[in-house]
C-alpha cells in the first residue's frame, strides 16, 4: 500500500520534470481556479471567458518581456531595469510610423502613414537601436551602475516623450509628434485587420458567438490573445535556441566570470552587445503588441512600474530558466496582478460593506474601541493601493525565502546537443525535457 503511494509519487515527480507538464499544470490550475471563482460569482459564460482572455493577453505580453529579460539577466547577467523605456521606444516608433500622414480631427499629430508590418519592424529596430545606444557606453560598467544607467535611460525616454518640445516636431520637413503628456491616439485601422478581414474569421466570430455568446469585438479580442500566445511561443522557441547553443554557452560564461571567459578567447563585449540588442528589440516588440490596438497611449503607461512587474515575474519563475519565465509571468498575472481584484470582487459578492471611512485615521480610530469593521472597509476601499504593497512585499519575501524562484535552481544545458554520457557508455536519461 505504502510502496504503491511512493511509486505513484515518484511517477508524479518524474512527470513534473517535463516542462510541458509544468506549464500545463500551472496554467490549468490558474484557469480552472478563475473559471470556478467566476461561476461562484455567478458570472455569465462570456464574462468568464472574457476574464480568461484578458489574463491570457496579459500573460502573453508579460511572458514575452520576461523571456527577453531572462536573456539579459538570467543568462548574461546584464542588470536591465530600463525595460519600460525599450517597450516605449518600440510602441511609440511604431505608432508614429503607422499614423496617417495628414491628421484629421481629434486625431491630432501626424505620422508617416506606413503599412503596419513596416511600422512594427521599424519599432522593433528602433528598440534594438536604443539598446545599442545604451549598451555601448554601459557594458563596461559593473552591474549596479549598469542598472542605474538603464533606469535613467528609461526615464529619459519617458520624460522625453512627455515633454512639450517633442509633442510635435519636424524632422526632414515632415511633421511628427509624440503627443507629449496627452499621448497619441490610434487613428489607423485595427492592426489585426489582416486577420479579421479573412473569410475564415467570420466563421470564428460565429463560433465564439454560439459557444460563449461573444459579439464581434470580443471575438476579435479573443483572436488577438491567441495570436499573442503564438508570438510568445515563437519567442520562447527563439530564446530557447539561443540559449541552447555555443552562443548561449558564452552568455552563461559571461554571467559566471567574464574575465575568465575573455582569457578563453571570447570577445565578451561582442556577445553582450548582441544579446542586449536582441533582448531590447524583443522588449520593443512586446511593447508594440501590448498596446498598439488600444485607442491610444500616454507616457504614463511606461512608468517604472512595468519594469518592476517584469522583474517580479522573472524572480517568481527563476532567473536562468525560460520555462520559469513563462510560469513566472503566469503566476504574477494570476496572483499579484489580476488576483487581488478578482478576490475583491469575490468578497464583495459575499459580504456587503457599508460606507468606508475616508481616511486611514478614520479607519484606525475605531479599532481602539474594538471596532475593526471600519478598518476592513477602508482596506477594501483602498485595495488597489494595497495590491502594490503586496507586490513589493512579495518581491522581498521571494528574495528572502527563494531567490532562485521556481526553476532557477535548475541549470539548463547550454549546448546545441544534449550533453549526456558518452556514446557507448550505458546512457543515463538526459534531462532535457520535451521542450527543445
Amino acid at each position, binding site marked *: 500500500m505504502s510502496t504503491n503511494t511512493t511509486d505513484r509519487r515518484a511517477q508524479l515527480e518524474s512527470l513534473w520534470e517535463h516542462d510541458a507538464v509544468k506549464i500545463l499544470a500551472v496554467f490549468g490550475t490558474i484557469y480552472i481556479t478563475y473559471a470556478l471563482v467566476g461561476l461562484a460569482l455567478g458570472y455569465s459564460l462570456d464574462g468568464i471567458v472574457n476574464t480568461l482572455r484578458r489574463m491570457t493577453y496579459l500573460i502573453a505580453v508579460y511572458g514575452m518581456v520576461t523571456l527577453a529579460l531572462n536573456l539579459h539577466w538570467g543568462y548574461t547577467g546584464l542588470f536591465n531595469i530600463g525595460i519600460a523605456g525599450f517597450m516605449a521606444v518600440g510602441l511609440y516608433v511604431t505608432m508614429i510610423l503607422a499614423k496617417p500622414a495628414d491628421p484629421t480631427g481629434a486625431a491630432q499629430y501626424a505620422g508617416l502613414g506606413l503599412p503596419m508590418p513596416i511600422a512594427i519592424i521599424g519599432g522593433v529596430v528602433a528598440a534594438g537601436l536604443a539598446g545599442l545606444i545604451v549598451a555601448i557606453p554601459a557594458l563596461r560598467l559593473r552591474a549596479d551602475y549598469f542598472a*542605474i544607467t538603464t533606469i535613467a535611460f528609461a526615464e529619459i525616454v519617458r520624460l522625453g516623450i512627455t515633454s512639450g518640445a517633442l509633442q510635435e516636431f519636424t524632422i526632414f520637413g515632415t511633421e511628427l509628434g509624440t503627443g507629449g503628456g496627452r499621448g497619441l491616439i490610434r487613428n489607423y485601422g485595427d492592426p489585426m485587420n489582416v486577420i479579421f478581414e479573412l473569410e475564415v474569421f467570420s466563421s470564428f466570430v460565429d463560433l465564439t458567438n454560439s459557444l460563449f455568446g461573444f459579439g464581434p469585438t470580443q471575438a476579435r479580442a479573443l483572436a488577438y490573445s491567441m495570436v499573442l500566445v503564438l508570438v510568445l511561443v515563437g519567442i520562447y522557441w527563439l530564446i530557447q535556441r539561443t540559449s541552447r547553443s555555443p552562443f548561449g554557452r558564452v552568455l552563461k560564461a559571461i554571467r559566471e566570470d567574464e574575465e575568465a571567459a575573455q582569457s578563453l578567447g571570447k570577445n565578451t563585449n561582442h556577445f553582450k552587445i548582441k544579446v542586449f540588442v536582441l533582448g531590447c528589440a524583443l522588449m520593443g516588440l512586446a511593447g508594440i503588441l501590448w498596446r498598439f490596438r488600444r485607442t491610444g497611449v500616454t507616457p504614463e503607461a511606461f512608468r517604472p512600474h512595468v519594469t518592476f512587474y517584469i522583474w517580479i515575474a522573472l524572480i517568481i519563475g527563476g532567473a536562468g530558466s525560460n520555462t520559469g519565465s513563462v510560469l513566472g509571468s503566469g503566476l504574477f498575472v494570476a496572483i499579484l496582478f489580476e488576483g487581488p481584484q478578482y478576490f475583491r470582487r469575490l468578497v464583495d459578492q459575499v459580504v456587503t460593506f457599508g460606507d468606508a471611512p475616508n481616511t486611514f485615521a478614520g479607519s484606525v480610530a475605531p479599532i481602539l474601541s474594538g471596532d475593526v469593521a471600519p478598518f476592513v472597509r477602508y482596506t477594501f476601499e483602498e485595495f488597489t*493601493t494595497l495590491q502594490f504593497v503586496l507586490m513589493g512585499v512579495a518581491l522581498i519575501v521571494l528574495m528572502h525565502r527563494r531567490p532562485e524562484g521556481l526553476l532557477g535552481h535548475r541549470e539548463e544545458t547550454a549546448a546545441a546537443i544534449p550533453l549526456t554520457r558518452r556514446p557507448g557508455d550505458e546512457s543515463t536519461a538526459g534531462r532535457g525535457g520535451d521542450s527543445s
Partner: protein
Amino acid sequence: MSTVDTVIDRGRGMTTEQLLLLVVGLGAFLLLGDLIIGILNGTYSISRVARYVVEGTLYGLIIGLAGIGLSMTYSILNFANFAHGDYVTSGAFFGWGVTYLVAGWGAASFGHLVLVAPQRGVGGAQLEIAITSTPFAIMAGLLVAGIGTALFVYLIDRIVYKPMRGSGGIPLLITSIGVAFALRYIIVFVYSNRTRGTTLGGLPSFDLLLVDGWVSIDVHDGTLIVAAVALMLGVHLMLQRTKLGKAMRAMSDNRDLALVTGIPTEQIIRWTWMIGGGLAGSAGYLMVLWTGTIDWQFGWLLLLLIFAAVILGGIGSIYGAIFGGLIIGISMHLSMVWLPGGDFTTITAFLIMILVLMIKPSGLFGGKTTA
C-alpha cells in the same frame, strides 16, 4: 581585488575615456563661454541666470543632504538602495504630521492633522505654517522627521536587510526595489494620494536687484540653507571626531579589515542606517518646507537625482555627495537657459550621470573614502 576593478583598470579604454572627457570638457567650456558672452551682451538676463543658480543651489542642498545617507549605505553595506527616495517621503510625512499637530492643535481632528490633511479641509495655509509664524512647529517637525525616519529605517533594516546581510549587492538591490514599492504604497494607504499645500504663501523675503531684475530669497529658502548646512557640518564633525565616525570610515574603506580589527560591524551598520535615514527624512522635510507641497511620490522622483549626485561625487564620499548634489541641482536649473520650459531639467541631470559613469565611474571625489 574584484573582477570588476580589473576589467575597468585594464587601461585599454583610457584613450576613449580621455577622448570623451575632452569632448565633454569642450562642451562644458563652450556652454560656459556662451553663458558669459550671453550675459555680457544681454542675450541672457543676468537676474534670470542668478535665479537659476540660487534655485539650483537650494535644490542641490536637498539632493546632497539626502545623498549623504545613500552614499554611506552604498559604501558601507555595498549596495544601491532604491528605497532611499521613499525614506525621504516617509520622513517628510512624519515630520509634517507633527508640524500640523503643533501648529493646529484643536483646529482639526488629531487624525486629520497627523496624517497631514489626507482630505480637503484645514491645511498648511489655514494653519498659517511658516518659519516666521510657527517656528516651533517647524523645528519640532524637522526633529521628528530626522529621528522618526532614523528609527523607521532601522526597523526596515531589522526586518528586511538584516536577514540577508551575507548576500551580494545585487540581491540586496532587487530587494530594495521591493521595499521602495511597498513603502510608497503604504504611504498612499496611510496618507492618501492627495497632493497638498503645506505652507503659507507670501513669505517675507530678501530681494536683491541684479541689473535687470530681482533675485529673491525668502525665509524658507534661508531656513533650508541654515538647516542643511548645519546637518552637513554635523555629519562632518561626527565622521572626523567621533570614534563611531572613524570606525565607519574604516569600514567603508575596507570591510574585511574592519572585521579583523574587531570593529563591531553590526553596530556600525545600524548607525549608518540611522544616520543616513535621519538625513533622508530631514531632507524630505526641508524639501516640503521649501516647495510648499507634499505628495506620496516626490521622494521616488528625487531618487535618481540623488543617485546622480552620489555617483558624480563618488560613492562613499559625503563631500562628494554634497558637491554632486550642488552640481546636479545647479546644472538642472541652468539647463533652462538653453532648454526653456523645464521639461529637460531631469533629463539633463540623468545625462550628466551617464556621462560621469562613462568617463569616471569612481566619481569626482574618487573611490572609497568616507571623508
